[in-house]
């Protein structure tokens, strides 16, 4: 719609590389009231640096999905602060949050969530269509080539395998060059080979295209593709691991589990 805006944000991301893409600061999320009150996030502070692939891990109920939902503007924040770039999410209206997700955030879901009526190509450009923006042809070609879908563009989701569908979803997330991509268990519905492919693309998008990715997962192997792993338990950040491998992640997880039981 407005090419100058895109260029401007691109320029800003170049000049402000040191500033994180997204920040949670003492983020609190509380569900319910009175006796049914549940604290899902209890003062979580975490930074997602630009050009970094972060995995968020933790046992069920640790708040990892809630953290992602709050950071992505899908769920309201109870306290503290969540920022995408310079933009404070607290106090934004539904309309402003929708705009934020549309223009600055990409999503990859566990269940792929493609529109069955649209072709792969149309699914990929859907966020741009919604925004009324003209896709950047060169960038789109690059993304499509990267996920290896060039010969599948006219297929509908039902004609694609699960792995292919999730690659379409990754391409859709990348198409708008968001400031950050949130991926929610992206390999949860895939076999290990397809999963590895998708994770490879996510890592490549970070390494080669300079994308920022935050991924929620419970799979140590998936987490090993990330640059850094943040561990959550009971709504707190309890640990962090750089340059993880499946083994180190598994090890930390075990410790967390036993620590949990001990506490």
């Amino acid at each position: 719609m407005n090419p100058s805006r895109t260029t401007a944000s691109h320029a800003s991301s170049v000049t402000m590389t040191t500033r994180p893409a997204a920040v949670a600061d003492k983020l609190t999320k509380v569900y319910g009231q009175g006796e049914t009150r549940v604290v899902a996030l209890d003062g979580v502070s975490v930074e997602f640096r630009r050009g970094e692939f972060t995995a968020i891990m933790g046992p069920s109920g640790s708040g990892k999905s809630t953290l992602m939902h709050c950071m992505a503007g899908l769920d309201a924040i109870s306290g503290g602060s969540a920022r995408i770039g310079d933009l404070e999410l607290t106090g934004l209206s539904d309309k402003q949050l929708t705009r934020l997700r549309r223009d600055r955030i990409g999503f990859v879901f566990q269940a792929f969530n493609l529109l069955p009526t649209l072709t792969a190509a149309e699914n990929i450009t859907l966020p741009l269509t919604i925004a009324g923006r003209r896709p950047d042809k060169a960038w789109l070609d690059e993304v499509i080539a990267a996920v290896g879908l060039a010969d599948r563009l006219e297929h509908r989701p039902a004609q694609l395998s699960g792995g292919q569908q999730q690659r379409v979803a990754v391409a859709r997330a990348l198409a708008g060059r968001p400031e950050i991509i949130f991926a929610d268990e992206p390999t949860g519905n895939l076999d290990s080979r397809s999963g590895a492919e998708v994770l490879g693309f996510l890592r490549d998008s970070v390494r080669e295209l300079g994308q920022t990715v935050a991924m929620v997962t419970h799979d140590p192997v998936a987490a090993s593709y990330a640059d850094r792993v943040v561990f959550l338990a009971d709504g707190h950040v309890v640990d962090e691991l750089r340059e993880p491998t499946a083994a180190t992640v598994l090890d930390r997880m075990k410790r967390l589990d036993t620590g949990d039981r001990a506490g």
Partner: protein
Amino acid sequence: MFRTTLRNVTAHKGRLLMTMLAVLLGVAFLSATLVFTDTFAEAYRKSSEQSFAYVDVAIRPGRAPEGGPPGARPALTQDLLHDVARLPEARTVIGSVTGFTAIAGKDGALAGQGWSTRGANYYPGPGGADPRYAVARGRAPQNAGEIMLDARSAERTGYQVGDTVRLSVDGPVLKEKLVGVFTTDDGEVAAGGTLTLFDTATAQRLFAEPGIFSEITAKASPGASQVALRAAVEKVLPEGAVTFTGDSLARDQAVRVEGTINDLRSTLLVFAGIALFVGVFLIANTFTMLTAQRTRELALLRAIGASRRQITRSVLVEALLIGAVAGCAGMVAGIGVAACLRGLIGSFGSGGQVLPDGPLVVSPAAVVVSLAVGVLVTMAAAWPPARRAGRIPPVAAMSAVHAPATSRSLVVRNTVGAILAAAGAATVLAGTGMDFDEGQYVIGLGASTLLTGVFVLTPLLSRPFIAAVTPLLRRMGAPGKLARENALRNPRRTAATASALTIGLAVITGLTVIATSSREATDARATATLSADYVVRMGNYDDLSVQVEDAIKATDRVTGGVTAVSPLREVPARVAGSNMFLTGVDAGVIGDLLRPEFTRGSLSGLGTGGALVDAGTAAEHGWTTGTALPVTFPDGGHGRVTISGVYQDTDLLHGLVIDTHLLDPHLRTRTAGSVLVKTAHGPSRAAKDAIIDALGDSPAILVQSKQDVSTSIAHSITVMLNLLYGLLAMAVIVAVLGVVNTLVMSVVERSAEIGMLRAIGLDRGGVRRMVRLESLVISLFGATLGAGLGVFFGWAGVRLLAADTPAYRLILPWGQIALVLALATVIGVVAAVWPARNAARLDMLTAIQSG
């Protein structure tokens, strides 16, 4: 199995709401019709029984005896009455004369409904009273100039005993003194008619001739049967007079009433049927969607051992439960509506009512029929989806994906549809070539076949329609594109939803086309050849007294405005051996008043012993200009006329036309069906007022300009159309529910997609727009098909009518057709309100994960 079914029904309460409503509305319409017409029939039956309480045998004039002068009927004289009264079998004998009597209210306007404003005589029996009428206030009329009014009319008009009442019998105004008010069981009075009573001599002078009755009725002596009395009466009758027993009259009346009510009932049932039929689409859609959503669950039941039949039966039992619950509610609602209707009609106007008093009749048959129809319609509509549910393979329980949208080939369906549609269209076309009586059934058959064919074809037809609106939708951005895809996604569902709307709108458009064309044709027949400024006639189409003619001619002298006046006298005569009506016109001036279209000859010979005949009659008898015809006039006199012109008949002029100078000498009373008037300066308020004044502001007479005639024709057609629109409204409402239903269910079905769209940046407004545009596509598709079919049906109907009446031409009411499409737009927007709000309010996180 039954427990699962019950759980399903209760679990899907919200989604079944529209289905329930659709069944409820259809059944309510049905039961309201049945209860209302039963009530109506019962009330009339009671009142007609009462009307014949004083009659054991009735004597009526019957037909003119063969060979006598045309139009002469046997006279029921005072002597005959005495003869009957002397019979030992007769106890009391009453002679009555009745006729049209219009009463002016205090404001000068006609009181009561035009058709049942009657006058009659008060016939005092031996005790000095007439048993038929009970004097409530004042006394009975005894002399000329005195009248008595029925209590309800007196109350309605506000006349008190002692007031002077203006009334008219055949045109001229009479001013009579109200001497009494009476009550009566008379059926027509009970139904809201006005009855004015005169003394017998006055009534005879007004309605017949002195000493002559129009009916003599006798009550049998104790011990004498109606049959015995009748046999005795037969012996003293003049030739041609006929007798009836009271029982047979009551029976005949009951049959007539029954016939009227049956007509009313069948008309209403047709519209109730349409509403129920529209509901079928909705119900079928609901069950298709519900079973599709439950595919895995049903497959699981199959996997653990349920048979196909058990699955099918469980869906049917669900339909049975819904049909029973909605049917009961609908029946109760229908009884309520019938009660309201009764009350409404009872209080129609100021105290006047069209329905005799009587209790609300809820027959067991009406209850059973309503319930059964509700249940059967629901189950029949659910039958195909129930069978499909039974065919779900057990393995579907294991597969991760939803059952694929039925992508079964539409080839068979399209072929069947195309054959049906083509056969239907051909039958309709063939029907338009026939005469009206056969043609209407052929066209009806063809129309329903074509409609069925089009329904079968709608999934196919939806594609070109959606393709046509795609450029528009693309301009609406992402919501438009998504709406397009959604409408295309399940062509069967889109089609079924649109079809429901098609039915109602096709009937509405077809009726509008026919009504508009009828209005033009009727108007043309009534006014096209009219060059007079005013047509003067009785409000009830009875004959006008000659005084009216004379009074209008006298206006000439008063205002100097009237230049030509001619009556149109219609009298029975025998022409060349056949009975027909002669129309007498004033040959000297008729050329200024009427311009008939001549196929042969002209007006010019009329004044010199010539006659005009309409083309139809001429063709029937093989007459043409120059044919000489022997005529026997009503008084038995003979004459001879020569045809000097053959014309196209209209409502104003038809049959054999001769000069009044030739006709009048043979008439005892010179009456006229209507009087045509030309004024010097054309129609104006002043000219009309002058004529009305000259006629003494008579409540019985209408003075209409060409424009007034057109307006009243247009008005009566509009009233009829509005009534039909009202009856069709129910079908349209059910169709709207269908659109709502489809949208609500597809929003539920697509909640994961909607959640995703919201997550990746479609705002609530966009989601709402998407649903609304899909709704608009569906309703405009249905409306376009409906309007198209309606125009075709209308065209066929007009062609058929034109075969009988050449004045019929197809008039396409573009304004109304545009209105139908506008209505569809409104329907689209309104139907989307609730589903769109649901979609926009979906909880994103839950919705995404539900995929």
